[in-house]
């Protein structure tokens, strides 16, 4: 079992670092080359969501990304925002996407969730086991070496 854990302050500039590390570990774990773009995008979206929530609630706590390749490649992105912040994660229908009344934040959240749901077959969003926050758990298959 190999686990890599990365924690970063909730600043947009660090999301790219999380993407780069996430893809490097995925490659090392044996995730198929053609899935790496999707891994990059999904980890980026999950981290962007976590950073946005921490900033929205004024939380300085670190966002954690945990990568493990025990059976498959599992990435957990953990935030510490109140759980109700995760309510309302739904895909927006096309006719609402360019609606004038939709705020930029609502649009980005809806589009971000559509990307996560569209690119990750095995996706779970659930409360953290201890304390306050949400865990976005994403799993990809690996080729055994």
């Amino acid at each position, binding site marked *: 079992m190999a686990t890599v854990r990365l924690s970063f302050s909730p600043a947009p500039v660090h999301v790219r670092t999380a993407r780069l590390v996430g893809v490097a570990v995925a490659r090392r774990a044996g995730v198929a080359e053609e899935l790496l773009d999707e891994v990059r995008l999904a980890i*980026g979206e999950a981290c962007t969501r976590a950073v946005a929530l921490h900033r929205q609630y004024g939380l300085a706590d670190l966002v954690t990304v945990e990568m493990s390749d025990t059976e498959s490649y599992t990435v957990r992105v953990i935030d510490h925002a109140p759980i109700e912040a995760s309510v309302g994660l739904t895909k927006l229908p096309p006719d609402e996407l360019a609606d004038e009344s939709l705020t930029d934040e609502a649009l980005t959240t809806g589009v971000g969730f559509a990307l996560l749901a569209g690119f990750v077959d095995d996706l779970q969003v659930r409360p953290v086991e201890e304390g306050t926050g949400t865990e976005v758990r994403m799993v990809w298959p690996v080729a055994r070496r």
Partner: protein
Amino acid sequence: MELSLATRTVDGHTVLEVGGEVDVYTAPKLRERLVELVDAGARNVVVDLGRVEFLDSTGLGVLVGALKRLRAASGTFGLVCAKEPLLKIFRITALDQVFPIYASVEAATTATASDERDGRGPAA
């Protein structure tokens, strides 16, 4: 790779060439440039994503914002994108039904010019 932005004019259209990574960190710079262009009077805007290596939901949000701004100003807005991974992002989010997406700058400028001639108004 950092975000790169370059503007040129093609057949009366303002073409913004975007390169590198458009994400939660760099998207505000793209938004700022698009707002500057519209504030400066650009009404027919084409964003060329040909050199974009990464695009996330915040980047998509900025592009939708530009589309709305130009609609409100009776302008046109089009995207140039021929890369399959990026096109897949537009399909998954259903934004391919919101943006006019063209394979080349020439196709984009020709299409939006004929829209104006036909009185069809803003694209999308």
